[in-house]
């Protein structure tokens, strides 16, 4: 076997191995999307109920709650970034990080300090690489978000929100995550979590809904006190679930094109190796013919 032919065969083999792996990852992601979507759907009743309740309290009671009132000046803002733990998902994590970069520029333009909370190993390694500081990070389990993690994140950011500015507290919280639009489309979404804007909250319940005049037990302020952390937690959990579903979809898409590319490589290299093999055979034939010719011509001269 010629040297050229051997090189092509090696390349075909390595492309085939890669294809097997990417194909397997594609199938795994495909099966996990369905599960992730089910989780999003399962969490929807809770989110709806909480949003509705918060909107109702906020609409019918004129209470000044620290979580709903916009401070006169906002000097520091927090951004919570939701990325994935693992790569090989196309632009999934970098989209979110780019969006965070844009938001940071905007906030700094408004004269605000920006602090970060990171979710997912990709965000952490990106920040390490750029030597940026984050207040806190959570890694592990981005593809299967747990309620407990959401609660932990919610508690941590709320703690920072309530703290005084001089102690490192902030007056604004933004979430950035990948929103699952469809199997093919996932968009980075930025929402301002706090201070609450009720307009944003009501868009999720049907616009035609009119809230009944609730009686509050024990009273409106206490109800709002108890509801808001739950609402924040629910928003964060939703963001995590959306991000997880998007991650699987993005990975499936990325792995599908990787598999297609490997297939294309295999095809090209097969053609090249066939050509090399033919060239080798042609050369051998011409060598034999040449040799026979030479023998015949020396025989003639005798």
């Amino acid at each position: 076997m010629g040297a050229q032919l051997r090189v092509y065969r090696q390349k075909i083999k390595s492309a085939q191995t890669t294809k097997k792996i990417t194909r397997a990852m594609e199938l795994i992601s495909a099966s996990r999307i369905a599960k992730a979507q089910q989780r999003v759907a399962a969490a929807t009743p809770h989110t709806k109920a909480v949003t509705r309740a918060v909107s109702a309290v906020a609409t019918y009671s004129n209470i000044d709650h620290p979580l709903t009132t916009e401070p006169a000046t906002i000097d520091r803002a927090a951004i919570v970034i939701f990325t994935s733990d693992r790569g090989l998902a196309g632009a999934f994590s970098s989209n979110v990080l780019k969006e965070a970069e844009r938001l940071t520029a905007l906030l700094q333009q408004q004269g605000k300090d920006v602090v970060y909370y990171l979710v997912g190993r990709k965000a952490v390694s990106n920040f390490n690489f750029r030597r940026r500081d984050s207040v806190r990070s959570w890694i592990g389990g981005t593809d299967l978000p747990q309620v407990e993690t959401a609660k932990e994140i919610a508690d941590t950011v709320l703690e920072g929100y309530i703290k005084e500015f001089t102690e490192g507290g902030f007056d604004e919280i933004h979430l950035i995550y990948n929103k699952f639009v469809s199997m093919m489309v996932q968009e980075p979404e930025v929402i301002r979590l706090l201070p609450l804007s009720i307009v944003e909250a009501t868009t999720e319940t049907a616009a035609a809904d009119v809230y009944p005049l609730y009686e509050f037990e024990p009273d409106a302020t206490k109800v709002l006190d108890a509801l808001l952390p739950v609402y924040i937690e629910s928003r964060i959990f939703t963001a995590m679930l959306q991000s997880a579903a998007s991650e699987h979809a993005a990975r499936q898409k990325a792995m599908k094109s990787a598999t297609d590319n490997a297939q294309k490589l295999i095809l090209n290299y097969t053609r090249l190796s066939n050509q090399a093999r033919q060239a080798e055979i042609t050369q051998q034939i011409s060598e034999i013919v040449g040799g026979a010719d030479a023998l015949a011509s020396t025989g003639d001269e005798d």
Partner: protein
Amino acid sequence: MADKTLHVDLVAQDQAVWSGEARMVIAKTVEGEIGLLPDHEPILAILGEGEVRITLADGEQLRASAEGGFLSMERNTVTVVARNAALI
């Protein structure tokens, strides 16, 4: 009055736990126990520790834990919401 029922939804953060018709819902709020019958006025209450008891249309009792959640009632629909809710 007797034929009226409440529609009850018991919702945890990651799933809907139970949903169905009931004659009465008794829950423990931070202020004390509250019983809800059909045509109760709209109410939003914070739940304390303790369980929620749901009396079904056939008189059977259903018990559920719904710690640290809240309860809302409007137009004969009761929604019990908690981070972790489960039937006992």
